[in-house]
C-alpha cells in the first residue's frame, strides 16, 4: 500500500535551495575577481593539463575587466552564504539530523561498495539509510568545504586583521590557492550531484522540495500477533 514517509525537514529544504543561487553568484563573482590575476593551472611534470581559464571561456561569460564589480557582489553575498551555512549546521545539530549525515565507522568501507554499485561493478545494494555511506561522506565534506571557503575567504579579505586565519591557511598566498581549489571542488560536486539526482529519479528528488517520499508499506495487522519467541 502506498504511504507517505517524511524525509527532508523544511529547514533543510530551504537552506539547500537558498544556497543554490547564492553559491552560483559567489562562484560567478569569484571568477570576475580571479580574472584579474588568473595564474592557476594544473601542471604535472611540466605539462599543463588545465589552464584557468582560456580566453574563449572568459569572453563567453563576459568576465574580463569586472574586478571591482566582482568584489562588490562577492562581499555582499558572502554574508548570505555564511549565515545560511551557519543556520543549516545549527539546525542539523539541534534537530539530530546530523546522525544521518555524519559518516560513522562503517561509512568509509561502505562508500566503496556504493561506488562499485553505482558503477555497475557490484550487484549487491549497499545499506541505504536516509543517506548511504557515500552520501554521508559527500554531504559532510561539502559542509567542511563551505567552512573552508569562509576561513580562506576571510584570510584573503583581511589578512592583517585576521592574521591568525591567514596563518592557519599557510599564509595569504596559499589561502588564495585553497579558496580557488575549494571552488573547483564545488563545481565537481555539483556535476556529480546533478548526475546522481537524475539517476535516482523523481521519488528521490521530490522530497527535497516537498519533504516526503512515497513508499510501499505493508499494512499493519489490526490485531497484535504474538511472536513465536513469546509463545515458546
Amino acid at each position, binding site marked *: 500500500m502506498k504511504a507517505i514517509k517524511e524525509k527532508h525537514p523544511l529547514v533543510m529544504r530551504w537552506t539547500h535551495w537558498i544556497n543554490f543561487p547564492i553559491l552560483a553568484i559567489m562562484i560567478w563573482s569569484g571568477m570576475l575577481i580571479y580574472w584579474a*590575476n588568473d595564474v592557476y593551472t594544473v601542471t604535472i611534470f611540466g605539462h599543463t593539463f588545465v589552464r584557468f581559464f582560456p580566453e574563449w571561456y572568459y569572453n563567453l561569460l563576459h568576465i574580463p575587466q569586472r574586478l571591482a564589480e566582482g568584489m562588490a557582489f562577492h562581499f555582499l553575498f558572502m554574508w548570505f552564504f555564511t549565515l545560511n551555512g551557519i543556520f543549516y549546521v545549527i539546525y542539523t545539530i539541534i534537530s539530530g539530523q546530523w546522525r544521518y549525515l555524519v559518516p560513522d565507522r562503517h561509512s568509509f568501507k561502505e562508500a566503496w561498495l556504493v561506488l562499485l554499485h553505482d558503477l555497475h561493478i557490484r550487484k549487491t545494494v549497499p545499506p541505504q539509510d536516509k543517506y548511504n555511506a557515500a552520501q554521508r561522506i559527500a554531504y559532510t565534506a561539502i559542509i567542511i568545504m563551505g567552512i573552508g571557503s569562509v576561513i580562506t575567504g576571510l584570510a584573503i579579505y583581511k589578512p*592583517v586583521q585576521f592574521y591568525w586565519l591567514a596563518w592557519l591557511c599557510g599564509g*595569504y598566498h596559499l589561502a588564495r590557492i585553497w579558496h580557488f581549489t575549494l571552488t573547483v571542488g564545488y563545481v565537481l560536486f555539483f556535476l556529480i550531484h546533478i548526475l546522481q539526482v537524475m539517476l535516482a529519479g523523481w521519488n528521490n528528488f521530490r522530497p527535497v522540495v516537498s519533504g516526503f517520499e512515497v513508499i510501499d508499506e505493508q499494512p499493519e495487522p489490526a490485531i497484535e500477533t504474538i511472536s513465536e519467541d513469546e509463545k515458546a
Partner: protein
Amino acid sequence: MKKPKKELTVDQKIKRRNFISFTIFGAFAAGTYAGWKWLYNSPEEITGITGGAHKPLRKALNKTELFFRRLTFSENHLVKTYPKSMAAKVVRHNSDIGSEGKLPPEQWKLQVTKNSGAILQISLEELKTLPKTEIVFDFKCVEGWDQVSHWGGVKFADFIDHYKLHEEAKLEYVGLETPDKQYYVGIDMPSAIHPQTLLAYELNDQPLPGKHGQPLRLIIPVKYGIKNLKRIGSINFSKTRPHDYWAEQGYDYYSGL
C-alpha cells in the same frame, strides 16, 4: 452545520502536498530570479567621492567594511614581516598614472597643508634627516597577486610628530595626491598612523626608481596596492573622505587588509 471533513486518501494527500510545495518552490525560484534581475540592473551610484558601483552594492560595501573595521581593526595588528633576503629583486609594477617618467629631484618638494592653511614645503633631504624605518612585507595588489618587497623611509607617525601635525592627525582622513593630481588617494587616520605606514624613499636600499614612485611614495601595508600612492606631491587632512582614484572606479573606499 459544517460537514465533518472526510479524511483524504493517500493519493489526495500526495497531490495536495506536492501542489503546495511546488507552488512555493516555483514562487521562490521566480522571486529569486526577479530579485537578482533587480540587483543586477540596479542603477549605478552618482559619482562623488565613490563611483562606478551599483547603488545597493556600494551601500553594502561601505557597511561591510565598517563592520569589519570596527570588529577587527587594531593598530597592534601588524603586517607580517620577512627577512630582507626574501625580498624580490625585480619588484612588480602595474601602473604609472600620475608618476610617469622621472622627476628631477630639485623640482620636487612635498607640500603639506596644515589646518591653519599654511603650507609646509619639505625637501627629500630634509625628510631623510628623520629616523629611517625599513619594512620587508608581502605587498598585496587588489588584482590578487602578492610579492615580498623591501622599502625604507619615514614612518608616517614620526612624520606627524616631527612636523607637529598633531592637530591635523585628529581629523579622520589624510588625502595624498601626485604632483600632477592625476592619481589621488584618501586614507583613514588609524591606517595612516599605523606603525607600519611609511613615506618611502627607498626600495631595496636604493633610492626609489621612477616607476616605483620616485622620489617619495606611500607604503601602507594595511591596504591594497591601489592605496599605496606613488610620487606624493601633496598631503592634506580632512574631516570628510578625500577623493580617491579607485573608489571612483567602483572599488571599496577603505580597501583595508
